C-alpha cells in the first residue's frame, strides 16, 4: 500500500523541454528524433558528470585501498548499490549484484543457480516473447543438464495465453524465465499472476526487467520474484553495468559464477573460501565508474518520476498508434496501446524494414529494424524483420510527427515506383 501512495504522490507531468536540455545530443537543429531507447538510451549530463568526477577527482580501485580516494570510490560504488536497491525496493542492499548487463545477470543465474538446482528431466518454462538473452542461456543450461524447455505461447494479439499456464507448469517445472515487457511488441506481461502460479507449482521465477525497470515502478517485494535482471544502459545509465537482484536465501546457497579477486575470503593453494553476497558474485575489478553513473541515472529517473515517465510514454504511444494508422499499408504488431509499453513494431507493405530505417535515417530519425534479438518471436509473427520505434522520457510529439512524415516520404519514394 505504501508503494501505491508513492505512485500517486510522485506523479506530475514531465517537463520534457527541461529534460531535453540535459541531453547534449538533442542540442542540434533540427534535433535528432531518437526512437530507439529500447535498444539503448541517451545519457543525461548528470550521469556523465558523476563518472567524470570519479575519473577526475577520486579514481582508484575499491574495497582495498587504505587511502582517502579509494575509500571515497568504495563509498560511491556502494551508494550506487543502495540507490538501485531502493529503486526496486529490495529488502536488503546486499541482494543487488552489479554485473555487466542483463545478459550477464541471467547467465550468472543459469550457471550458478542452474548448476545447483537443474537436473535431467527438469523443465524450464519460457515464453514466446523472450529476447535471446533470456532464452539462449536456458537452452545452454538444458543442453548441459538434460533438462527441457517449455514455452508459454502468445495469442494473435501478442498477449500471453493464460489458458495454457496450468498445462505448461507441472511438477517438473523448476524455473520460469519471463520478460516483464516484450522488447519487440511492448506487451506488459501480468507477471504477478505468473509468479504466483509458478510459486504454487514449486518453481522459482527470474524476471527479465530490462524493458520495465527504466520505464515504470517495479517492486521486487510486491512481485515476490526470485531473481530480476536489468541493464544500466537502457535507463539513462552508461554501458557496461547491469544488475541482478536475487533473494538472499537463494544467493547465499549459490556457488560463485566467476572466480578471482574480490570474491574470496581466503585463498590457499588448493582451496578457497568465498566472500559473502554480493562480493561472491563480483569477481575482479568491477565497472566502478559505470556503477557510479548508474547511481546517478537512478537519481535522474526517480527525480523525473517513474509514474510521470510511464504516463508520458503512454501518451506518446497512443498518439503514435493514431498517427501511424493513417499510413497506407502499415501493419502494427502487438497489443493495443493501453496494454503495452512505449514500443511499436510495424511493417509497411512493399518496403523492407531496413529500407524504412535507412530512409528515416536520412531525415535524422533513428529507429531500429531487424529481428530485435527475438528470432523465435519473429518466426511466430511470420515476419523476417520489423521496424521498431520506442520512446523514453525525452521524446516528444514532434518526434512522432517526424517519424510519420519520414514514413510518408519513404512510401512516396518506394511505393510509387512499385506501381
Amino acid at each position, binding site marked *: 500500500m505504501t508503494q501505491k501512495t508513492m505512485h500517486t504522490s510522485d506523479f506530475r507531468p514531465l517537463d520534457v523541454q527541461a529534460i531535453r536540455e540535459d541531453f547534449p545530443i538533442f542540442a542540434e537543429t533540427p534535433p535528432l528524433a531518437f526512437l530507439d531507447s529500447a535498444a539503448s538510451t541517451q545519457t543525461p549530463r548528470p550521469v556523465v558528470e558523476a563518472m567524470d568526477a570519479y575519473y577526475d577527482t577520486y579514481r582508484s580501485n575499491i574495497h582495498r585501498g587504505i587511502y582517502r580516494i579509494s575509500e571515497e570510490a568504495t563509498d560511491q560504488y556502494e551508494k550506487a548499490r543502495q540507490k538501485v536497491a531502493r529503486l526496486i525496493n529490495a529488502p536488503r542492499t546486499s541482494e543487488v549484484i552489479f554485473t555487466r548487463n542483463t545478459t550477464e545477470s541471467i547467465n550468472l543465474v543459469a550457471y550458478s543457480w542452474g548448476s545447483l538446482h537443474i537436473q535431467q528431466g527438469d523443465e524450464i518454462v519460457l515464453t514466446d516473447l523472450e529476447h535471446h538473452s533470456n532464452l539462449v542461456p536456458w537452452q545452454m543450461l538444458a543442453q548441459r543438464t538434460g533438462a527441457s524447455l517449455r514455452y508459454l505461447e502468445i495469442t494473435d494479439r501478442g498477449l500471453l495465453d493464460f489458458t495454457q499456464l496450468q498445462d505448461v507448469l507441472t511438477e517438473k517445472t523448476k524455473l520460469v524465465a519471463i520478460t516483464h515487457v516484450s522488447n519487440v511488441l511492448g506487451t506488459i506481461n501480468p507477471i504477478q499472476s505468473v509468479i504466483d502460479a509458478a510459486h504454487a507449482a514449486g518453481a522459482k521465477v527470474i524476471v527479465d526487467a530490462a524493458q520495465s525497470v527504466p520505464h515504470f515502478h517495479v517492486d521486487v517485494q510486491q512481485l515476490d520474484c526470485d531473481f530480476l535482471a536489468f541493464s544500466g544502459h537502457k535507463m539513462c545509465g552508461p554501458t557496461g553495468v547491469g544488475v541482478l537482484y536475487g533473494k538472499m536465501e537463494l544467493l547465499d546457497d549459490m556457488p560463485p559464477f566467476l572466480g578471482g579477486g574480490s570474491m574470496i575470503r581466503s585463498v590457499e593453494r588448493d582451496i578457497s573460501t568465498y566472500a559473502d553476497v554480493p562480493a561472491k558474485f563480483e569477481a575482479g575489478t568491477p565497472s566502478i565508474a559505470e556503477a557510479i553513473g548508474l547511481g546517478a541515472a537512478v537519481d535522474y529517473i526517480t527525480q523525473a518520476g517513474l509514474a510521470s515517465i510511464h504516463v508520458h510514454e503512454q501518451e506518446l504511444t497512443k498518439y503514435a498508434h493514431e498517427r501511424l494508422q493513417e499510413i497506407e499499408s502499415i501493419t502494427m504488431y502487438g497489443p493495443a496501446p493501453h496494454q503495452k509499453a512505449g514500443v511499436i513494431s510495424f511493417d509497411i507493405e512493399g518496403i523492407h524494414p*531496413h529500407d524504412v530505417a535507412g530512409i528515416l535515417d536520412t531525415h535524422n530519425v533513428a529507429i531500429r529494424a531487424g529481428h530485435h534479438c527475438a528470432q523465435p518471436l519473429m518466426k511466430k509473427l511470420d515476419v*523476417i524483420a520489423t521496424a521498431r520505434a520506442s520512446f523514453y522520457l525525452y521524446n516528444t510529439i514532434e518526434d512522432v510527427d517526424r517519424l510519420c512524415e519520414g514514413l510518408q516520404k519513404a512510401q512516396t519514394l518506394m511505393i510509387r515506383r*512499385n506501381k
Partner: protein
Amino acid sequence: MNIYQEELLDHYENPSNYGTLPNPDISHEEDNPLCGDRIRMDLLIEDDIIKEVRFCGHGCTISLAAASMLTEKIKGKTLTEVKNITREDIMDMVGIPLGPVRVKCALLALKVLKAGAYGIKGWPGEEEQ
C-alpha cells in the same frame, strides 16, 4: 537522399536475372543473420565460363539491387575472374557510401556466390586467409 539513388531503385524494382535455373551447375543460398535477408544464386557453367545466372530471395533495396548488379557483372566471365571480385568492387558497383551494417546487405550476393562456387566462407574482405 543519395542512399536511395535512382540506379539502385531501378535494380530493386526491375531486377536483372531474377529467378532460378532448372538444372544449375552451382546453386547456393544463404542468409544474413543480422537481418534475415536471404539470397539464392544459380549458375550454369560451360568451359569455366558463367553462361547463365539467376538470383532470387528477399531483402532490402541494397541487398537485392546489389545482387541484380552482380549478376550483370559476372555473366560471361570466367570463374577465375569472378573469384577475384572484391568487397571494394562491390562498393564501387553500388556507388554510394554505406555504413558497416548496410555494407553487409550489399555484400550478401557476393558472399553467396563465393560460398557456392568456391566454398569460401565468411564475408568478402573478412575471409580467413
